[in-house]
């Protein structure tokens, strides 16, 4: 049984620290309250940092939206059973702590 646990732990670790995680990762998506700003994370640089930068620039250009609701929302659901995302959940947890708003909610 110990061997099985060790194997599973190895699989979890490998799926989190090798490019397997890159291949299995979801495209995390974000939006603002009225859906005029949307962002999809892509592999390679189109990451959460870029989302925050672009959203900052968007708010600078659209002060009325900053006034109305300047929160960035995640449109993806958190799936804790996806063990290959655990590293992201631990070390890049900020995206998971954003408030959730489905992609279509509140859009006219």
């Amino acid at each position: 049984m110990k061997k099985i646990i060790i194997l599973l732990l190895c699989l979890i670790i490998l799926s989190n620290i090798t490019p397997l995680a890159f291949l299995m990762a979801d495209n995390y998506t974000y939006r603002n309250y009225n859906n005029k700003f949307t962002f999809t994370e892509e592999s390679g640089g189109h990451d959460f940092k870029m989302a925050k930068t672009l959203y900052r620039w968007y708010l600078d250009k659209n002060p009325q939206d900053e006034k109305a609701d300047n929160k960035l929302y995640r449109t993806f659901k958190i799936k804790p059973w996806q063990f290959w995302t655990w590293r992201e959940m631990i070390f890049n947890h900020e995206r998971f702590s954003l408030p959730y708003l489905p992609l279509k909610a509140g859009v006219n």
Partner: protein
Amino acid sequence: MQTPVNHKITICFVAFFCVASMISCRKEESPFIETSPSGLNRKEAQNWFGQQLQQTDHARVKTYSIDSVDAISKLEIDWDKYTGEKTGKLDYGLVSLNGQVFNNNYQTGYRKLLIEKNQNDTLSGHILEIIPDGLYLQTHGIIQRKDFSGRVFFYDLHYRLKKGLVYENGTLTGEIKPSSNKTQLQREVTVMKVAPIPGIDGWHDHNYINGEGEVVIYSERISSPATINDNFGSSGGFTSGGDFTGSGGGGGGAAGTAPPVSNLPGENNNKIDPKSYMKCFQSLPDAGSKMTITVYVQEPAPGLPFNIGSNSVGHTAIGLTKTYNGQSITQVIGFYPDATGKEKMHAPSKILDNSGLSYTVSISYTVIASEFSKIINFLSDPPKIYDLTQYNCTSFVNEACLKGGIKLPDPTGNMGLGTSGMMPSALGLSIRQVGSTGNANVNGGTVPLNHGPCN
């Protein structure tokens, strides 16, 4: 020796792992309509359609008119794809039609032929144009009646708009009729810029280009599901069931299938046309301009040789700047797979705008106009295929630089499992070795906002 508690923990752990794997690896639901053994049978539908064709021919001979009756004869039907359906008391059949609905060169919908058997056993048919809502298509990919959001237009066999239905998350929320002001058909390929025109009883005029390439003006109003009637024929509506919208989603272009998700206008805002980005540089003269190429690298684990780290697998982008008399144009772009999941290994490529990219190192080179031009030519028409190991974002930038006579610090490193190739981690480390004496920036930063496309 294991204690009972340890044994239980082990079993729970294994069970959790298995369940997690099963849940996460489950297959998507079938994108195709479930065929029913009941419903209008194919032979009956085919005979009826043959009769309609004959009647159309007679009408043409009699009236010497071609345009008014020609729509039906232009339909190409693959009867092997026919499916019979039954909904309550209604028997009907559906088959995909050739021709798709386009808007600004983007496929926005698809067509089907609907043949229904009325309560008095007579048959009638309509051409359906099914146009899913852009956001719905982007988020669902697969089109199904049960959660469909979008519009279904009902045309008669002479391609005259008869009615339409508006759906929101599988529920009827509105109805469509030909515009009472004027039903205008124009053979044009541009969308008319008509703002919704408010009318009485909540009807608003809109327009779209149908599968025949004609601009159709229609009236639409939002109603509660209870108040919407299917006032066409006596057979009742399709509101309670039946999957007349059903089709493969994201499949990319076959008749009767949903538009490919990534091809919707505005739905993938990041994907860019590199030609239009490169065209901007023409607005500044070559003579007297300073031209710079900057390679930006986001290392997976800054300063370390790992291929994956806090920045995932990292990224390499290329930036071009042209400055003339204080006027400056900068475009920073990157090369990506146009796919998700394991398909990212080897997929069609796409170019993304890398404004706002947070990089860890960069290196700049001043080039002359002819070298700049060669790089622009390469970036305007990038390779069509992305391959994670053979031709990735770093390979792309390296090749672009070589076109302009720039030899980057060594971008090759160990990819693991005995293979080597170009990758951001290796290029990042090589740039760090060059240091600031070689026009390198090892402190990182954020890529500025791009100029954007030029038409």
